[in-house]
């Protein structure tokens, strides 16, 4: 396969929400963007939006908890584009926004599901993308959360797995730096279907979230979060690694 001149990036969980925003921002720059998700119809629709935005969008089926599925998705990208310049782990468990409870009230199954998508998913993507990112001297980006810094009384499992991604990413930045691979995290606060669900499930949450936001608004998934992610995937951030960028309007007091 002849290598594409355009950057090629794979984004997990990009069939909606923040992942879609990142995909569109990368499309805006003319990149090859792979929507790696389980939902084919939604993923194909986002791929078309990417193409309409000026890039080349593709959908590739991917279950981030399944090693062979992640491997197949990466193989498809490399077979088509000849390279992988960036990998983004954005997928998050459906349960992360739907259950608001203190730690002892989570079942083992609920804990395992969130760990599998966020933490094991990060590992699988890193483990399997490594040879391709080494070849391209590319970038890995993990979507974390302010919850991973400060904890959450009613979202303790989510806070924990998001923190795990930060620790993992920081260690990988040390490990992969000598090979020219950069690893960063991005902590977004954006208008997404998941946040809408969380606001419904915890009626006091919206006031808490907005009350400490100095910019007074939620981020736009494409303009505010996607472009920040694109920066971390691009050569413009060639000297940035091991960092967590807070794209949260200044909400989180702990960084």
């Amino acid at each position: 396969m002849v290598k594409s001149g355009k950057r090629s990036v794979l984004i997990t969980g990009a069939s909606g929400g923040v992942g879609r925003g990142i995909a569109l921002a990368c499309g805006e720059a003319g990149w090859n963007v792979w929507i790696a998700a389980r939902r084919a119809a939604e993923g194909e629709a986002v791929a078309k939006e990417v193409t309409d935005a000026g890039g080349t969008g593709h959908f590739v089926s991917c279950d981030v908890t399944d090693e062979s599925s992640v491997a197949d998705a990466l193989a498809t990208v490399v077979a088509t584009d000849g390279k992988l310049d960036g990998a983004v782990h954005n997928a998050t468990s459906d349960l992360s926004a739907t259950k608001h409870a203190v730690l002892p009230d989570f079942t083992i199954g609920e804990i395992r599901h969130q760990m599998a998508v966020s933490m094991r998913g990060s590992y699988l993507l890193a483990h399997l993308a490594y040879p391709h990112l080494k070849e391209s001297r590319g970038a890995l980006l993990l979507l974390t959360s302010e919850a991973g810094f400060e904890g959450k009384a009613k979202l303790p499992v989510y806070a924990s797995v998001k923190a795990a991604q930060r620790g993992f990413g920081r260690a990988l930045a040390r490990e992969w730096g000598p090979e020219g691979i950069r690893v960063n995290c991005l902590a977004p606060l954006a208008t997404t279907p998941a946040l809408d669900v969380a606001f419904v499930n915890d009626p006091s949450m919206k006031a808490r979230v907005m009350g400490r936001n100095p910019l007074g608004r939620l981020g736009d998934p494409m303009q505010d979060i996607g472009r920040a992610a694109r920066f971390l995937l691009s050569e413009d951030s060639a000297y940035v690694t091991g960092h967590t960028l807070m794209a949260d309007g200044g909400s989180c007091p702990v960084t």
Partner: protein
Amino acid sequence: MARTDVTVIGYDDSEACRIAQEFDARFIPLARDADDDTLAAWRDTTGSGPRSGSVVVALFPKLQDHAPISSVASPDWDSRADTPLLHWMVALGASALLCADEGTIVAVTDCPPPLDAAGLAPEAAVAEAVSALTRSLALSEGKRGVRANTILTPCRLVTDPPIAPAPPLPGFPGTMEEDVLNAVKLILSPEAAHLSGHVLPADRGRSW
């Protein structure tokens, strides 16, 4: 409900026993090989036991060789990251049930300092996750006066700092006997009665 001063939760073949001994504590073992049903039952049973003024959760997994993530196979990830963190979630959940009002919860976990974390990405992930879990408990249990803090130790993971600069204090990475036990004493002491949600690296100044 009866109240015991200090309770330590840990694996019964680990350094947690030494912590329990130091504080003359009640020791509640967590089985390393427990399946999911056993873990859930253990949490329920432990959480319904006598309340304790101080609960120290100290889970020290079996040590494994440093390895780049490219060579960490899926079963190795399970044993280095998934299983330890699941155990932390269950044990800290039990600690919230076990801790008396106005009591204290302390998590003691392995953690490579960020400078020394290459080859230890699973352990770095778990340590950060535990810190956030404990902060979550600080928030949820603070309403009844319970404080929750984390102590990080590199003493089992790192023998020498692999890269410059050297840590500011001599003796890195410290010892369980000196650095960890003293840090636990500090956090359990009345002088720390108003500290909660903090993460204390007991690593001779290697990180903060």
